[in-house]
């Protein structure tokens, strides 16, 4: 029992930190332009394909050491996925900036379908896979049972913490971060102070896509398989995490991701793994009913 609990805690932390990374994209975009970017899950899916392409490129050039491969793949996937994020905003959302709130939402759903079908056409409908990059595991004996922590999982947790820490630093301490926060808090005033808010919005999409790409590379390392539809469920899970933490709140997205990942893993381990998605979405319904502003979100206050 203890063994299962600890094992699922590790699994949950791994999954949760990845949910958190993807949730960042939802929460930042919502914070700055008030829309749910339903194509974000598919941006993650694209990044998983890019990770595979990156790995293939690495081995084509004869680079086989783990640090070089993972770093090269990360850079490749993050850069190209960021371009996707930027382009999606320019093509599908920016022209709708001053229309009704519903218009960009529908455009986002369209974008999601376009990405799925484009990848299906370009890469085929079959499931794709990558080989395991990082072999080996820690085996900890606890009482009667034992816990296995693969090096991959440790790498995922560490990389997620580094990614989130870096982003928190950028948002809190740099001019770019202050411009993002200013645009989020009062867009019109930000413009009057000389901020090109269209550009700031582009940056936010780039940051969100970059975080999704980090998640994409990490998950691909862990599971090894993905298909063109892989962004859907994980996208909605990350969205749940963002709502759980309080949509619009950056620490909320990270916390929400961890809580969702851990509780989902515990449910799967202790109750029934077939119903873990039901559990997650039941959680979403409960949050929306009882605490719609989320754990760290603020109740909506009308601006004076």
């Amino acid at each position, binding site marked *: 029992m203890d063994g299962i609990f600890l094992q699922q805690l590790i699994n949950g932390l791994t999954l949760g930190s990845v949910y958190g990374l993807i949730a960042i994209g939802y929460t930042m975009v919502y914070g700055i332009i008030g829309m749910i970017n339903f194509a974000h899950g598919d941006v993650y899916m694209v990044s998983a394909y890019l990770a595979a392409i990156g790995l293939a490129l690495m081995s084509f050039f004869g680079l086989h050491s783990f640090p070089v491969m993972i770093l090269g793949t990360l850079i490749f996937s993050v850069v190209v996925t960021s371009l996707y994020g930027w382009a999606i905003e320019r093509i599908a959302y920016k022209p709708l900036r001053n229309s009704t709130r519903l218009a960009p939402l529908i455009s986002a759903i369209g974008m999601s379908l376009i990405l799925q079908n484009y990848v299906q056409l370009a890469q085929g409908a079959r499931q794709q896979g990558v080989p395991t990059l990082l072999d080996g595991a820690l085996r900890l004996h606890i009482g009667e049972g034992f816990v296995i922590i693969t090096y991959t999982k440790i790498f995922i947790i560490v990389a997620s913490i580094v990614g989130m820490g870096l982003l928190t630093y950028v948002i809190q301490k740099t*001019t770019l971060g*202050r*411009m993002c*926060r*200013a645009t989020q*808090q*009062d867009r*019109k*005033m*930000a*413009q*009057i*102070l*000389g*901020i*090109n*808010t269209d550009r700031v919005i582009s940056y936010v999409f780039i940051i969100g896509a970059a975080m999704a790409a980090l998640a994409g590379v990490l998950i691909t390392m862990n599971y090894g398989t993905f298909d063109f539809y892989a962004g859907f469920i994980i996208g909605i899970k990350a969205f749940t995490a963002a709502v759980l933490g309080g949509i619009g709140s950056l620490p909320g997205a990270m916390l929400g991701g961890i809580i969702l990942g851990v509780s989902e893993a515990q449910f799967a381990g202790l109750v029934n793994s077939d119903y873990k998605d039901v559990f997650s979405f039941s959680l979403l319904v409960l949050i929306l009913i009882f605490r719609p502003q989320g754990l760290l979100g603020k109740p909506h206050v009308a601006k*004076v």
Partner: protein
Amino acid sequence: MTMPLLEFRNVDVFYGPIQALRGVSLHINEGETVSLIGANGAGKSTLLMSIFGQPRARNGQIMYRGEEITQKSAHFVASNGIAQSPEGRHVFPDMSVEENLLMGTIPIGTKHVDEDMQHMFELFPRLKERRNQRAMTMSGGEQQMLAIARALMSRPKLLLLDEPSLGLAPIVVKQIFQILRELAQTGMTIFLVEQNANHALRLSDRAYVMVTGEIRMTGSGKELLADPQVREAYLGGH
């Protein structure tokens, strides 16, 4: 005649079908303090915001240092030396006082930030006490001071102030106008929009009176203070 710093030439502004500004012409010379007075809803704030193209003028021209800025973006205008403390203050609620002041430096970068922030803390000692406090937790007067200080952080060539006395206690209004007077004496060009005509006219070299989107009168601050019509309409007949 020297070129005015800012000039409106026959500017019309509409909100949908409603005309908010009607053929407005006015100018502000370098170093002057000019105020625009008028009742609530006369179009004073619209006029200030139209400098930033929000809303954009439909007809006429807005000239800044001899260059037309009618169609320019808000961030272009701000980057070229016009700063505004807007109606309702619009400080960033979730940022500290220092961070709000840092936002004022976007047009010029952070080269002078330490020196300028020190200067703001001398002008507004209350801000120094609250430098790490979030802006939303401050009183209206403190927020107003912060909004003015934030505008000054960009070392503007033209400072626009929209209703700095709105909703503040008389003693705070007095403090704020005292600071504006000091700023004016340093040669700063100030364009002030006010309902508090008494304070505004006393401070100003020149003033314009706006009624339902039109400029009805203009003159020196002293002339308008003495004008019976102005006294009747804006100074409570005293």
